[in-house]
């Protein structure tokens, strides 16, 4: 608990420090914006996690979202995936879909804000992909980021593993 509190403080500091920098970007064209973002603390291909067990990877300003191995394991066999529609505007930490496993419907929260560009129709057809391949074929939807700085609040893989060990979630 102490550890996660520290992590939180740490990420809060990161957030604070990133804000003024981001303000400067607002006047610059979006191409520059993403280039600047690319060299920031977040490695573009790195997988990041939320405390609600969603993961996100980013390429060219498009985030791919899924749920973690821990999440799929605790859900059990997923029998239905309800994903956000393409074109939907979603906000960070807001409910944007649901996964139904045997007898429980679990809400899916978006780890980032933006517009949905694609949903994984393969997962809609075979929800079991979420269990068998949660980081690859079992991705859920893609989002065009509007606030890339949100990613910095999320945990990297190492921190997420520590979070899993330290917390009762």
């Amino acid at each position, binding site marked *: *608990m102490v550890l*996660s*509190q520290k992590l*939180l403080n740490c990420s809060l500091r990161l957030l604070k420090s990133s804000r003024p920098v981001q303000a400067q970007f607002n006047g610059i064209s979006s191409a520059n914006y993403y280039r600047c973002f690319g060299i920031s603390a977040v490695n573009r291909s790195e997988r990041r996690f*939320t*405390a*609600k067990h969603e993961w996100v990877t980013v390429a060219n300003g498009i985030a791919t979202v899924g749920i973690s191995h821990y999440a799929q394991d605790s859900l059990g066999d997923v*029998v*239905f995936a*309800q994903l956000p529609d393409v074109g939907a505007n979603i906000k960070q*930490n807001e*409910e944007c879909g*649901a996964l*139904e*496993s*045997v*007898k*429980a*419907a*679990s*809400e899916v*929260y978006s780890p980032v804000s933006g517009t949905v560009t694609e949903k994984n129709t393969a997962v*809609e*057809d075979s929800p079991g992909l979420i269990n068998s391949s949660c980081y690859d074929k079992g991705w859920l939807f893609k989002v065009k980021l509007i606030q890339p700085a949100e990613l910095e609040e999320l945990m990297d893989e190492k921190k997420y593993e520590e979070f899993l060990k330290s*917390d*009762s*979630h």
Partner: protein
Amino acid sequence: MLNMATRIVQGGFSKGQFALIPMRLQKCNTGPQVNGARNYSSSSSNDMTDNNSNDLKGVTDDSIKKSVFISQSYDVFTNLALEDWLYKNFDFSHHHLLMLWANDPCVVIGRHQNPFIEANVSNLMRKGITLARRNSGGGAVYHDRGNLNCTFFTPRERYNRKYNLNIITRALFREWGIKSDISDRDDIVISGKKISGTAAKLGQPNAYHHCTLLVNSNKLHLSDALAKDEVNIISKATSSVRSPIKNLCDVNRAVNVPQLLSAIGYEFLRTSATELEDGGRDQAMKQRGFQLINPTEKWFPGLTEIREMFASWDWRLGKTPKFTVQKELEMKAEDKEHKVLLSLDVEKGIITNITLTLPTNDVVPVVSNLLNQPYTEDSLHGMMDALKLVPSSDMKQAMSGL
């Protein structure tokens, strides 16, 4: 038990209990704090956000109070709205809640189910049985006043289905000596027959687990309500696992809904918050007890809007995962019977495409005023009847023209 019954608060909430106002709403208010609200907030008075779990770790069973809410409504949409309101707005970190409720005749399907697979929707409408879609997963159930519903609310971290089901089986044993088992599907069964079905909704920060309990439901109505139309439906929707059922009154004639309601409520109150430890009367007396709830907008601001959502066509039928209905028809042409396949695509409850597949495997689009209309069994049968009236000369033409 008598003592508990006398603790029932009449007429909904008194002012002090208006603490039920959601913490989120309070934060928006700049006005004075509602009296007593602090009792329900978490000790750290933090937001109910991501780090809720950290706050929960130090919470001991002794510091968690329990209440039993008895809904005074028999309207399924109102009860589903009350359940959803509590799920969205209540802070359960120091207060666990059991909501007990019953409905007038209705069929309640799971969040991602297809009502046309689970029941005959047109038939339900004719019989005056309400169709409702709940927010949790799982299968379709029939409710009437002979069926008691129990909703157990906790923070997501303390969601524990086995604990809840054990409260019920213990209550049955303590009150009537009835022995029941919990199946691997988390149904409660007596000699292999199901008396209770379970479903759950997991979110952040809250979760609930609810289940039905058949006391003296009308079994004829139940099987009639859950009989579906004889068509082939192709769908990804969650399907129900149909199981043989039993009423508790057929196990023991003394069982009735009011007594079962107080037996389960009392068992819940006398058991400690996260462990199945019986604390007897002393433990029960420490709790907040039974409260009769009148689910109105006045006590639960925003409830009407949630109720309207549950009662809307858009939610009940429009949320149906897309599906295709197929029915094989026999048509006469050149004095021979030809089997053709009528196929309807339905998206968001609306018929988007109608085709006939001919014996030659050619697919012909059907032009009908049913296109872009809501799908029902009656509209399908109307269409089948109309197709039977198609003159054989037209059929012949259709066959030869392709």
